[in-house]
């Protein structure tokens, strides 16, 4: 085995990046398999990289087929079996897209967290920061208007543990209430557009440090119990909604990009 590899290594020649790659004619089963993989990576990976990935995949399958041939199978059966034994095209496509995506990670934070997680962390980190600032505005520009709801503040507190940050008929109240409701949809959609595969997992991973940060910072910074409520909101609303929306958005993006592939 090792000897074989060494022999191969001695006859192979380096390929420059810009060299036009030869496109060997593959067995039909391999061709069909490669087309299926191509469908999953087209548009998400640069064309030259797609060809390299596919060529490498073909090499993997054909090496396996050679081994099966040496075990006594005829060439056609060996190639078909090697192809059937290989990864599911979608699974392999995801791995290749992820490899390309993460290979462009730069900077210590991105390298440590992974590019996808860092993108989610940035998107929702900004959103969280903006919300913190919005809620801080009530300290800088306090509204002393009375609440207009039918419930008294004491009755209201049974349902909402913190004091309402603004009177309900003020524009500040609308902004402060709508913002956290809209952000998981919008942020999840943006994250799904920026992270091509496993966006929902990245949302979960990228938001964990934010939840911990929010828990500590909101306790210290935000007035009353609003911060704690916000942390709960992050866990029970932002996290699930954003991950679902990110998954849908990412999937739609892949479908749109992959639909242009010529097999």
């Amino acid at each position, binding site marked *: *085995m*090792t000897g074989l*590899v*060494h022999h*191969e*290594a001695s*006859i*192979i*020649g*380096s*390929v420059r*990046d810009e060299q036009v*790659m*030869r496109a*060997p004619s593959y067995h039909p089963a391999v061709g069909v398999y490669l087309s299926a993989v191509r469908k999953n990576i087209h548009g998400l990976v640069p064309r030259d990289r797609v*060809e*390299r990935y596919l*060529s*490498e*995949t*073909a*090499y*993997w399958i*054909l*090496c*396996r087929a050679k*081994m099966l041939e040496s075990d006594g199978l005829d060439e056609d059966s060996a190639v078909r079996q090697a192809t059937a034994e*290989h*990864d599911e095209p979608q*699974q*392999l496509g*995801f*791995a*290749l897209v*992820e*490899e390309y995506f*993460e*290979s462009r*990670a730069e900077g210590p934070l991105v*390298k440590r967290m992974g590019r996808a997680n860092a993108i989610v962390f940035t998107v929702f980190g900004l959103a969280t920061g903006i919300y913190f600032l919005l809620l801080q505005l009530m300290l800088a520009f306090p509204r002393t208007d009375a609440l207009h709801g039918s419930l008294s503040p004491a009755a209201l507190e049974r349902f909402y543990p913190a004091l309402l940050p603004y009177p309900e008929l003020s524009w500040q109240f609308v902004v402060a209430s709508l913002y956290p409701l809209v952000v998981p949809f919008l942020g999840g959609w943006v994250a799904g557009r920026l992270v091509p595969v496993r966006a929902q997992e990245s949302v979960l991973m990228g938001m964990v440090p934010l939840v911990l940060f929010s828990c500590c910072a909101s306790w210290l910074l935000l007035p009353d119990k609003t911060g704690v409520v916000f942390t709960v909101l992050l866990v029970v609303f932002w996290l699930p909604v954003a991950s679902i929306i990110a998954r849908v958005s990412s999937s739609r993006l892949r479908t749109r990009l992959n639909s242009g592939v010529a097999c």
Partner: protein
Amino acid sequence: MLILAILRNQSLAGFHIAQELKLQSGGRLEFQQSTLYPLLNKMHKDGLLDSTWHQSDNESLRRIYSLTDKGRAEAERQIRAWNEYTKTVGQVLDRLGP
């Protein structure tokens, strides 16, 4: 660690790394392309592996992986740590008896 160990003395393509792992483990460790490549990519990003694309006359393009100096040092460190760990565990089990 096993990938680093395999690449200590040779440069190999992904398929052959997987085959070596399977062969040396008696078939117990089997890696598919989708499982192996993220690992190789991570090690490459961490500076443990170097890779070059190669193509022979009648075969497909593939990437050949080799250890960098950092990877070689990391391989030695991990193997030494593993040997010490298994030795220690073995000693404890021996003293505890059957």
